[in-house]
């Protein structure tokens, strides 16, 4: 894919990524967010943050499985959209849900593991978002890669946050958990493959 085509794809992804937000505005203006609109917005933005996180994490498995590399260029933008929806999610929680009642918020975050886990995941996305620009990539060099491996921790925390949120029916969060396990599993499989190939190669070299 050439530069021009990549640009078109980027614009398309950018527009598509804003559709979930546009939908919320549309429903909101038409008074169509249901009996508990705050909960609706909270769940919607949270779900989309998680979806973008999983899409971001699927760029490398696509490369491993198909050999295609162009999609890696979308990764930063997708990751930032994850951060964008996570910010909306937390804003909804602090503002619309808890109306800036800081004492209530403090209790909620510290006493409820599901909130604590989600909050930790959000905090960890901040350094990644801040260092997502080219300047920071150059400046941090090899440390950048190490830092951005935090995304795996964030993904696990986010899925656990969702699993803990449901009262009884785990069906929906389990879909996300399975998706994450698959995405991480593919990576581990290829890593293991490469590792054993390297060992075989080394052994062969020793024999000759």
């Amino acid at each position, binding site marked *: 894919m050439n530069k021009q085509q990549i640009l078109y794809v980027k614009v398309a992804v950018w527009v598509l990524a804003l559709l979930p937000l546009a939908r919320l505005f549309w429903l*909101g203006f038409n008074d169509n967010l249901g*009996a508990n609109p705050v909960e609706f917005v909270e769940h919607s933005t949270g779900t989309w943050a998680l979806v973008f996180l999983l899409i971001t994490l699927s760029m490398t498995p696509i490369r491993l499985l198909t050999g295609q590399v162009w999609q890696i260029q979308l990764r930063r933008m997708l990751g930032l959209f994850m951060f964008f929806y996570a910010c909306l999610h937390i804003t909804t929680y602090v503002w619309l849900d808890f109306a800036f009642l800081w004492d209530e918020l403090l209790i909620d975050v510290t006493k409820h593991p599901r909130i604590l886990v989600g909050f930790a995941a959000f905090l960890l996305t901040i350094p990644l978002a801040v260092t997502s620009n080219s300047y920071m990539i150059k400046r941090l060099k090899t440390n950048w890669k190490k830092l951005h491996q935090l995304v795996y921790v964030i993904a696990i925390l986010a899925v656990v946050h969702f699993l803990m949120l449901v009262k009884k029916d785990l069906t929906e969060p389990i879909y996300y958990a399975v998706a994450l396990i698959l995405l991480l599993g593919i990576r581990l499989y290829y890593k293991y493959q490469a590792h054993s190939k390297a060992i075989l190669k080394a052994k062969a070299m020793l024999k000759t």
Partner: protein
Amino acid sequence: MIILSKSAINPTNIQPSEITSCEVFDNRRHFIKAAGFGLAAGSALLLSAKARAANVAGGALSNGTTEGDGRLLGRANASAKVDKLATKAGARIKINDYKKTAYGAGEKVTKYEDVTTYNNYYEFGTDKSDPAKYSSQFKSRPWTISIEGEVKKAKTISIDELMKLAPLEERIYRHRCVEAWSMVVPWVGLPLASLVKWAEPTGNAKFIEFISANDPQTMPGVRSPILDWPYTEGLRMDEANNPLTLLAVGLHGELLQNQNGAPVRLVMPWKYGFKGGKSIVKIRFVEKMPLTTWVKSGPNEYGFYANVNPNVDHPRWTQSSEKPIGVGLFGGRIKTKMFNGYTEQVGQMYAGMDLFNNF
């Protein structure tokens, strides 16, 4: 029954501006429209019209008069007609004969649409919108309730007989869910105490167990083992006899919709909503504290008493404040009150009890 003064039963801190205005007028208008259309087009059409409506008397059957905005149902066959109407999904059947009470005077009730579309009724699905969507196959009439256990009158009674045990009355109660949201619901029903009195419990009856319908054919939720079906709830005898405890058969002046627990459900406004068993089929008087569904499912999260208590936190939801339904995106939260604001009526039942351990 003790008649409470307005101020005693209305310690609300809900601002009128925070709650959607009462939709009773609006409902009536819809109703008149539907009925008018029906009358013009003939009764057959009325029965098949989308917003089916009919006047029925609660408790005693209709005396044959109508307010002029609905169908006239005769004394003899009213019950059969109600049964027939109620089998139609979403039929809205008005209750004529119920008395207004001072309970909840001044409260702004949550609008009908919200009360009937935002429900926790896992027998029909775990999403709040599921019960309204997936309860249409459920048949709430004809209906019988089996009275069992430590009582002199261990027998089965029909919903119509139950509705005649005491005059129906409207009670506007605050409804607080353990998930930290709340509503104000104008229930129509009769005190559970009147059923207890009628059943004549023996000296061994210390608790009452309430068992809900469990029909995999018409309740999609019970096909999966999310909870240990049938849904079972329980009350201590004094709680059951408390004047606040209501066997609700209607809300907003109409018979209960399936998603709200038709044809009869429990309402204890000082307890978290899950205590209110819906679509009750069995009422069992027992000596030992019943093991209730949510206690079985998570004993560290849900207790037998489940009294609304802002000082005892839940592992998942903050209990010191709540989100009122109907206040919109920017309506904020309100502080939760001890016993949901009903301390005066129920506090003495728990005097001396450790409410932290007996949550």
